[in-house]
């Protein structure tokens, strides 16, 4: 900051604290979602009912956290009348929270398939590595968007879109497996697995959306 502006730099410190609080809440929400997808993946890979129930219950907490965060953002907009980068930060925070909430929903859906098929496993043994890879990709991408939100690093934000290519590649492999004439597990498991693959693929797309919103927040431009 320029020297002659320094004595006045503390103006709106309360507002700045509120903006920082919103950013931290988004990071916290990202961590909740990251934990949720990690547990959902473990539940579906190991047919763990208790873990699946835990993920399903956690979804309400994610929803409530998002509602509280949105209410806080609306209150800040109404009281502080932000403009420029501050307005972008708050409007994009509203949209990021919606994306993160949907990512939580995807984890919830994954856990519900695990619960639906319990005590059987929803994923045949030969496909466990593929879903483990999808779970790993989902966790990696979620952790990265947490960093992107916290640091507002635009280069890292653009990397997330490339990270999503890995998820898309796994999704395409899954579909190829399911439509292969040699598929031996029947229609019902195929439907489950199609949905599971779709949940992971959509999960990663929402993460990309979050990262691109951070890019817009910082630059005022769409990537």
């Amino acid at each position, binding site marked *: *900051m*320029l020297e*002659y*502006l320094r004595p*006045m*730099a503390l*103006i*709106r410190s309360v*507002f700045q604290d509120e903006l920082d609080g919103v950013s931290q809440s988004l990071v916290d929400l990202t961590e909740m979602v990251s934990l949720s997808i990690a547990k959902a993946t473990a539940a579906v890979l190991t047919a763990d009912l208790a873990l699946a129930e835990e993920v399903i219950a956690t979804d309400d907490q994610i929803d409530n956290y998002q509602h509280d965060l949105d209410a806080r953002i609306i209150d800040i907009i109404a009281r502080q*009348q*932000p*403009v*420029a*980068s*501050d*307005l*972008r930060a708050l409007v994009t925070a509203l949209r990021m929270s919606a994306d993160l909430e949907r990512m939580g929903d995807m984890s919830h859906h994954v856990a519900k398939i695990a619960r639906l098929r319990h005590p059987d496993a929803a994923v045949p043994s030969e496909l466990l590595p593929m879903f483990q890879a999808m779970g790993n990709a989902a966790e990696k991408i979620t952790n990265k968007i947490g960093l992107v939100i916290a640091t507002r690093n635009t280069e890292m934000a653009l990397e997330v879109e490339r990270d999503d290519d890995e998820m898309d590649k796994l999704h395409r492999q899954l579909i190829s497996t399911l439509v292969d004439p040699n598929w031996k597990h029947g229609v019902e498991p195929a439907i489950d697995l199609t949905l599971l693959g779709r949940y992971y693929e959509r999960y990663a797309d929402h993460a990309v959306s979050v990262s691109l919103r951070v890019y817009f927040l910082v630059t*005022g431009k769409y990537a």
Partner: protein
Amino acid sequence: MTTSHESEKATMDTAVKPSSLAQVANSQAAKTPSASAEGTGLETRGIHAWFGKHHALADINLNFAAGTVTALIGPSGCGKSTFIRTMNRMHEFIPGAAMAGEVLLDGKDVYAAGTDVTKIRLKIGMVFQKPNPFPSMTIGENVLSGLKLAQLKVDNKDDLLQECLERAGLWSEVKDRLGAHGGSLSGGQQQRLCIARSLAVRPKVLLMDEPCSALDPGSTLRIEDTIRHLSETMTIVIVTHNMQQAARVSDYTAFFLSDGGPGQMIEVAPTSEIFSRPKDERTENYVTGRFG
């Protein structure tokens, strides 16, 4: 005008290159001037202002296209009011004040030798921070006072009176008491009366120096409505400390700042850009309230 900086002015008249004019013209191309507004608008080139030895304003180049509203924003003491007072030659009223540069109204310099200052102020009207109706005059007399002072004649004063009060958004509130004293009106009504008074001499440009700073929110919004309607037929320049007001009423916004030296124009752009994606970090810090 009297100036202790004649030699310096002469140097600057030739030396000042309004380098930002092209940029301003490009940014202002975003707004199509109102078809109803007469003339080509107002342009300042290399405006400097002094109060004695204090250099208050440096090298201001701005183009106010006809039929547009431009807001001037910036911290107190950055020269906004001084700048608009140079535009209708009110700056020179202050003892020791001096200026340099050109103010072009429809392409003609208002400071050109032989220019009648009174006629300039008829074309470039001004509304001040505090409503200042003539207290001993009626509402009607207040509106028509400019004609009397400038010794202008009109065919139908009643029609002009109604037209000016309607354009100022005051007619419906005072039409039944035009004989009441101007001082009997509320602050917001008095300010609109002053606007109506400015309109009676049919100015091409209206300069407004914090016209709503002494008014309640309702009166402020009525004045803002009036500004939007007036901009269909004239050019308006408004100084305001109210960021939301600048965002609501103006087509373009110019940010002024003093770094301890003379006030400078830091950035001018369509208002939507200034309040969403300002190019200069200092503008961003000011509009977001990080200093000021």
